[in-house]
């Protein structure tokens, strides 16, 4: 249960980060609060869009899917379900691979770092670890007294 709670909480934070970047891509938010990073450079690059869709929208949808799945998994009737753990791990793996690709672009193609993107990368990595641990946990036989 703790693992699914952690996934729900982290995916909510990831959702908010992606929402912030998506609203910026739509022009709702003027300047990104980036500190010492190069958010504008990354966000204004052609890689910030896939087929015309802002990359951040994929984050919004992905984190929302993780959040809803984790919340469903926290309901008492779904807590013992292994399928939900597997679904969370699958979603997290997809998110991690996509984030890995974006981080590669930042490091080797764009040569600039956006700290919001790095924050999201950190979040999805922790979610992925928690989701895998959840699958392992649900694989263990339940010992009944």
């Amino acid at each position, binding site marked *: 249960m703790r693992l699914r*709670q952690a996934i729900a*909480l982290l995916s*909510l934070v990831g959702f908010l980060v992606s929402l912030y970047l998506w609203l910026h891509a739509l*022009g709702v938010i*003027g*300047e990104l609060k980036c500190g010492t990073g190069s958010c504008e*450079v990354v966000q*204004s690059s*052609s890689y*910030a869009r896939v087929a015309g869709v802002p990359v951040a929208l994929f984050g919004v949808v992905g984190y929302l899917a993780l959040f809803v799945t984790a919340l469903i998994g926290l309901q008492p009737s779904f807590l013992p379900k292994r399928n939900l753990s597997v679904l969370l791990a699958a979603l997290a793996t997809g998110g991690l691979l996509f984030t890995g690709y974006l981080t590669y672009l930042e490091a080797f193609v764009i040569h600039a770092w956006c700290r919001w993107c790095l924050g999201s990368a950190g979040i999805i990595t922790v979610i992925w670890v928690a989701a895998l641990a959840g699958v392992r946990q649900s694989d263990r036989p339940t010992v009944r007294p």
Partner: protein
Amino acid sequence: MKRFYWLLAAVLLGGLAWIWIGSKSSGTGTEWVAETKVPETKADSQFTGYVMGSDTAPVEVVEYADFECPICAAWGSVQFPVIKQQLIAAGKLRWRLRDFPLPPTTHLWSRLSAHAVACASEQGKAWEMIDALFAHHRMWSQRPENPEKLFRGWAQDLVGLDMAKYDACMATGRYRGRIQYSREEGEARQVRGTPTFFVNGREWTLRDVSSDAFQHVVDSILAQRRRR
């Protein structure tokens, strides 16, 4: 368990409030001033400038211009309309305009104005936006105030752009790399100031840059071609 849901609600509300506050604070425009190195993409390098005139015109002029430069504005408002009417409309000349933003030490809003034109070009109205910028040049050039709102007003009222698209374009700054690429291309061609012209690939070295001078040069190129 109830405490956990309260925690989620607090995080959600806190995050949304933070985003809302962020959306209310407008940028100062400083991101447009700095000559930051923006990575260019393949699309940036494939863009070859704003073109006016026939593809089959025998003469091509490439102009490197800075929209904040007073000489570019004066020349663009007085000489260019005549060239447009006498040479471009007649199919003798094709005009290609390239961005060459000057350093922010003298021209704070070069890149911002170049970007406004690029965003107008998305809707096929680059030249109209350039006309608007030049027509109101004194209102915004070489002034400390950020002219972003002025540009937006002209884009809406004079150029007739779809403002949702324009705003999104300006907010993303998606053409900064393209503008930087154009600047670097100009540097590679030894462009040192604006406006600089190249006629069929050769730099215009005459001091006279009047429409009459262009007319004369274009006519002599055409006469040479006819003799061959």
